[in-house]
């Protein structure tokens, strides 16, 4: 492989990693701060993608669909937290797993009833629907670069929000001691509700901006779920910074695994996870939020 191809593969890896970060960040927030194992996270990604498909075919614009879809996702998150998840904080993980697994089935069935089981494409917005030629045969779609830029911006925003703002401080405090925060007069229930809504919105947002390149199809949520958990575990539960580093590592491991050791391409990511866990059983950035 020449240097040029290597660089393109590097770009592929980083770009894939950034998208993984976007999906997984919501999971690590909900898992790390609220202690909820949310198997339905992949469903929120799927719901986002289907919203992008439905809303963009209704309104004719992916951007309008993304704005409207994000608001709907926040609403969905608030309702779910209020109706279901708020009853689970004091229960053990098994009951959370049962509920969220049930939600996967419910969301898949609803998707089937409302939109059907067909595969749908979502058009790339006209502004970014072109490619940059890299070699004589290969071009790089601009929309993929835009996606990466959005992911980087969001990572920065999240970091600032959690570490440099007052609500972020409340979230971090709530993560380390729920009772203490409550006794200081802060409305911890509201904080949790917002964190959950934020987590749902992040997953749905990832689904929406990924929809033009991934298409929307049944079962797409379960596909991202497992890899998201790998990101969270490698990065350290609850750590945004960890999720970013882990997602990039996974993106690179997966891409170069496919190129250099194609026979093992299915397991390079899990090998990486095993190595990291042997070295740091708590993940790369445990508890740093």
């Amino acid at each position, binding site marked *: 492989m020449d240097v040029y191809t290597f660089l393109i593969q590097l770009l592929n890896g980083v770009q894939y990693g950034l998208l993984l970060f976007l999906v997984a960040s919501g999971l690590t927030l909900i898992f790390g701060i609220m202690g909820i194992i949310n198997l339905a996270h992949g469903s929120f990604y799927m719901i986002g993608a289907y919203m992008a498909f439905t809303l963009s075919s209704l309104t004719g614009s992916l951007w309008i669909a993304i704005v409207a879809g994000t608001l709907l996702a926040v609403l969905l998150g608030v309702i779910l937290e209020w109706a279901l998840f708020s009853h689970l904080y004091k229960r053990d993980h098994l009951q959370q797993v049962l509920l969220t697994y049930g939600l996967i089935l419910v969301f898949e069935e609803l998707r089937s009833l409302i939109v059907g*089981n067909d595969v749908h494409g979502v058009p790339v917005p006209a502004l970014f629907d072109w490619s940059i030629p890299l070699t004589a045969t290969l071009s790089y779609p601009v929309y993929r670069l835009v996606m990466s830029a959005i992911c980087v911006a969001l990572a920065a925003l999240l970091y600032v929000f959690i570490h440099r703002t007052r609500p972020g401080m409340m979230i971090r405090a709530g993560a380390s001691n729920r009772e203490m925060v409550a006794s200081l007069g802060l409305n911890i229930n509201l904080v949790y509700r917002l964190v959950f809504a934020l987590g749902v919105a992040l997953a749905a947002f990832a689904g929406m901006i990924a929809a033009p390149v991934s298409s929307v199809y049944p079962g797409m949520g379960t596909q991202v779920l497992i890899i998201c958990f790998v990101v969270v575990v490698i990065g350290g539960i609850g750590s945004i910074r960890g999720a970013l580093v882990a997602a990039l590592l996974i993106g690179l491991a997966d*891409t170069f695994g496919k190129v250099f050791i194609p026979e093992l391409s299915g397991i390079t990511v899990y090998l990486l996870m095993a190595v990291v866990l042997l070295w740091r059983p708590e993940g790369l950035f445990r508890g740093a939020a």
Partner: protein
Amino acid sequence: MDATGRIPRSGMRAAALGVAAACALAWTGTTLAQQTKIKIGLMLPYTGTYAALGTAITNGFKLAIQENGGKLGGREIEYFTVDDESDPAKAPDNANKLIKRDQVDVLVGTVHSGVALAMSKVARDNNTLLIIPNAGADEITGPLCAANVFRSSFSNSQFGIAMGKVMADQTKKTAVTLTWKYAAGDESVGGFKEAFEAGGGKVVKELSLPFPQVEFQPYLTEIAALKPDVVYAFFAGGGAVKFVKDYAAAGLTKTIPLVGPGFLTDGTLDAQGESAQGLLTTLHYGDGLNLPKNNAFRAAYAKTFSTPPDVYAVQGYDAAQLLIAGVNAVKGDLSKRADVVKAMETAKIESPRGAFALSKSHNPIHDIYLRKVDGKENKVIAVAIKNLNDPPRGCKL
């Protein structure tokens, strides 16, 4: 119905007895009917990703039976349906339910190869007649073939073989293959490699990724670096949509033609849109196939089910035609199993895809068409291979 009249007076205990009695009555009813009705077990996916395929196969099957006067060899028909959920783990149980509990005479199914493999095992163990209307696993009509197992659809390698020949005939020299790493993909790619290399080409690299991953970018980069004359890819459904779109977005379509089996562009053209235009695929069916039988079939199907038929409906229709040929030959006397099998083996099926007969291993010997994507259609532009028979793969029939 007499039993139900007594229930209110005799309390719960008697109610239970009444229900039991009613069940017994119903059961006696079916055993009596068994002597007159032929029981057909449809084990197909009616929920999940393949639900639409299961429905199309069922519709096609029932249409052929209806055209035969709603009977088989002069006997009435009773259907037993089981949703196989495309779940291989549940397949032995489901097949046994139909065979042991419902005592079906014929088992029809299914779409998913893993489920079909399990069904063929159960069918062989119980010596039940099985007709497979889709699943293409080569083994079923290869090393695992049996006198009582038939297929009305195709084997996975057939489309690869056809495309390999077409590409070699176009004097393409090098090819890269890409597939999900599972049986259907491996067999399809295997068929392509076999025929392409026999025709003087060379497969320079065989790429694969775990099912159902869809992150193709590294492979596209590699293909661009390898610069083969053609790329043969096996994907279906959501994966096919994403792959074809990614391939076009990477600008590869202009320099390296992409080809594949029909699944790459079947039922996915709405979502693939512009990116699929002009792609060549091979399948045993396609749009614009101007055969009298096909035109009649399409009209009848659309009239009965208010939706146009697809390749799966054709396969269901032909499964029933195959069964009709067998049962009519013995005038409904299924105890003459050897004669039923013989009639099916020698039948010439007037299929909407064009007439076909079965190979020694009970797989269709049919024309494979070369199709080109034109708008929202997979237009048949030529016959890729006439009367394609599978290579013998260790079937001892």
